[in-house]
C-alpha cells in the first residue's frame, strides 16, 4: 500500500527525522523574528491570516487562513499545521491543511484531501523553489493566494480556460458549497462543541466572523437551492455526492444561537479574569 515504509516529505505531522536534530541558533532567531512579524501583521489585521505559535517549541505552529472575499472560499476557516526544519530557513517548512472534512474534501487543484498542499516553494510542485530569504508568512500568503476564484485554473492544462468556462464555473460552485459546508459549518460546530484541537484564539475569531458573515452564506445557499440533489462532479473523476444547499443553510441557522451562547460564555470568562488563555485577536 502506498505510504507504507515511505518517508513522507511534505507532511509536518510525519517529520520524525527532524526530532533528532536540535534546531540551530540561526533557525531559532530567524523563527522568532518570523513569528513576531506574523503577529504584527495580524494586529494590523488586513491579511486574514492568524497564527498560533507553540511557546514550547518555536518550530511548530498553527495557522488560520480565512478564505478571501470574492472567491469561492469566501470567509471559510482553513487551519494549517506548520513545522519548520532544524536548518530553517535553508530548507522550507512543511505545511498540512487540517480543514479537509476528515480527508474527504479536496479544496482545489493544489489543496489535496489528505492535507498536502501543492506549492513549488514547499517543494511539492514544479516551479520556483524555496529560497532562504522566504519565510513562513510568505508561505501562508501563497497558500491564501491558491484560494482564488476560477480555482480550477490552478490545475495544469486548465490554466488558460476562460473564467466563464462551464467546468470552471461549476468547480467554483462546488468549492463554494464545500467551503460553507465544511470550512464554515463543520469548523464552527467543532469550535463550539469542543471536538477540538483548535486554539481558543482561532475559535473566537471563527465564531465572531461567523456571526458577521452568516447572512452572506445563507444568501448563497438560497441562491443555489434549486440545484439541490444535483451531483457535485469535478474533473477529478469523482462523484462527491450531491449539492445540499438547503441542509447547509439549515445548519448555519442552527449554529447561530449556539455560537452566541458560546461567545457569551467566553465574555463571562474574560470578565472574570482568571487564567485566560485567549490572546486578544485582531477582529475587524
Amino acid at each position, binding site marked *: 500500500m502506498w505510504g507504507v515504509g515511505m518517508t513522507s516529505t511534505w507532511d509536518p505531522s510525519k517529520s520524525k527525522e527532524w526530532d533528532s536534530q536540535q534546531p540551530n541558533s540561526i533557525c531559532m532567531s530567524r523563527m522568532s523574528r518570523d513569528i513576531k512579524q506574523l503577529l504584527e501583521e495580524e494586529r494590523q489585521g488586513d491579511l486574514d491570516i492568524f497564527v498560533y505559535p507553540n511557546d514550547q517549541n518555536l518550530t511548530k505552529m498553527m495557522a488560520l487562513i480565512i478564505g478571501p472575499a470574492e472567491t469561492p472560499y469566501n470567509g471559510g476557516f482553513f487551519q494549517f499545521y506548520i513545522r519548520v526544519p532544524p536548518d530553517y530557513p535553508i530548507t522550507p517548512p512543511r505545511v498540512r491543511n487540517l480543514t479537509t472534512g476528515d480527508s474527504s474534501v479536496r479544496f482545489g487543484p493544489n489543496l489535496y484531501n489528505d492535507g498536502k498542499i*501543492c506549492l513549488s516553494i514547499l517543494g511539492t510542485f514544479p516551479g520556483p523553489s524555496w529560497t532562504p530569504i522566504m519565510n513562513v508568512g510568505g508561505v501562508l500568503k501563497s497558500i491564501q493566494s491558491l484560494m482564488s476564484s476560477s480555482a480550477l485554473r490552478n490545475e495544469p492544462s486548465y490554466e488558460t480556460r476562460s473564467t466563464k468556462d462551464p467546468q470552471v464555473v461549476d468547480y467554483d460552485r462546488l468549492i463554494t458549497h464545500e467551503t460553507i459546508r465544511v470550512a464554515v459549518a463543520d469548523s464552527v460546530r467543532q469550535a463550539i462543541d469542543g471536538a477540538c484541537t483548535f486554539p481558543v484564539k482561532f475559535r473566537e475569531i471563527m465564531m465572531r466572523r461567523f456571526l458577521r458573515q452568516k447572512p452572506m452564506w445563507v444568501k448563497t445557499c438560497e441562491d443555489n437551492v434549486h440545484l439541490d440533489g444535483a451531483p457535485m462532479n469535478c474533473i477529478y473523476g469523482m462523484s462527491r455526492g450531491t449539492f445540499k444547499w438547503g441542509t447547509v443553510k439549515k445548519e448555519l441557522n442552527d449554529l447561530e444561537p449556539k455560537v452566541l451562547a458560546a461567545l457569551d460564555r467566553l465574555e463571562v470568562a474574560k470578565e472574570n479574569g482568571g487564567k485566560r488563555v485567549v490572546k486578544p485577536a485582531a477582529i475587524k
Partner: protein
Amino acid sequence: MAAPDLNGSFEEGSLPKKFKVNGNAVNGDGSSSNGGVGITYSEADSSNDVGSSSSQFPSYGPASNSQDGDDLLPSYPAWQLSADPTDYPSDSNEASTSSGSRGEPLKHMLDCVEHQYVDERTSKQMLDIENEIKLNVPFVAEKEDLSVLGDEYSDPVYIAKIMDLKSKYQWLRRTRGDGNCFYRSLGFSMFENFMRAGDKEKVEAMKRFMVECKDGLVELKYPALAIEDFMDVFNDQLTKVMETPTDEELLRIFQEQGSSDFIVVWLRFLTVLQLRREPEFYQNFIENHSSVVEFCQMEVEPMYKESDHIHIIAVASLLKIKIRVEYMDRGDSPTVIGHDFPEDDAVPEIYLLYRPGHYDILYRKDSD
C-alpha cells in the same frame, strides 16, 4: 509568489539532474502551462502501490494523535479544554471521525494518490541522495594529497589528466556535492586567503563592501532583515577566522551547517546582485529563462542549484577575485583545461577543480 503564477519558460533542461527522472510530462499531454514540465515520474506499475488510504490520515483531535506515533499537532496547553476557562464542553473522544465515512470512488483515489506518488517518489529519491551525501562527505573536507584522485579512475584519459594536474597542484580539498559546492569552495578559499594573508585592513574593506552589497540587494527589493542575516554571518565568521587564524577554526566555520550554509546563501545573493546590476550583459548567457530576474529566482537564489560559467563570471566580477577552474572531463585533451574568470593576465587567487557536476578546491604546488 505562488508557484502557479509563473508562466512559461521553465525548461526541463534547467532542472538539476536529480529532478530529471523521466522525460514525460505529468499530464501526459505535454502541457506545461502551470510552471513547466517539471518533476515527472511515470513508473508503469505505480498503481500497484496505491491503496485506499484516506483513513490513514488522522483527522483533528487528540484521539487520533497517538496512532502510529504521528505528531499531528503539538499539544498546546490552551487546547486542553478542561483547562479552558471559557468552559467549552470537553469531549475529545468525539474528535476523531477519520474513518473516511464520506467515501470516495476508487478512480479518484487513484488519480489523487498517483499524483502524490509522483512527487513523493521524486523527493524521496532526492532525500536519499542528500542523506547519503550527508553521511559520507563533510561540507568541506580536510586537505588531501592530489594523488588520491588516482584511486578514483582507471580510465587512461583521466589518468593522463591527473598526471597533468599533479604537475601543477599539490593538494585537493573536497566539498560536498550538494549543488552548493561552487559557493562553498569559493567561500572557503576566500576565507583561507584572508586568513593566510592576515591583512586586517583588507578584511575590513571587504566587510564594508559586503554592507554596500547588502544595501544594493535591499534596493532591489530583497527583504532587508533576511538579507542582513546572511551578510552578518559572513562578516562575523570572517572576523572570527581573523581572530583565531587556524585551520581548525576555518574548518569549523565551513563544517557547521548554520554558518556554512549561510555563507553559501550570501554568496548566492552576491551573484544575484551582479546579475541584476548588469542584466543586458548577462541576458546573453541565459538560454532557458525569459529574464535575468527569473534566472536568479530559479537558478541562483534556491539552495542546491548548481553553478555554471555565468554564476562564476558574475560573482568573480563583483568580488574582483580571480578564479581559475581546471576542467577535468572525458574530453580528448591529454591535459586539464584551465579557465580563468575573469580572462586577464592577473595571477589567480582561487583554484578549483571541476569534474562534471562538481567543484573541489585545489592548492598549487608552491602553497603550504
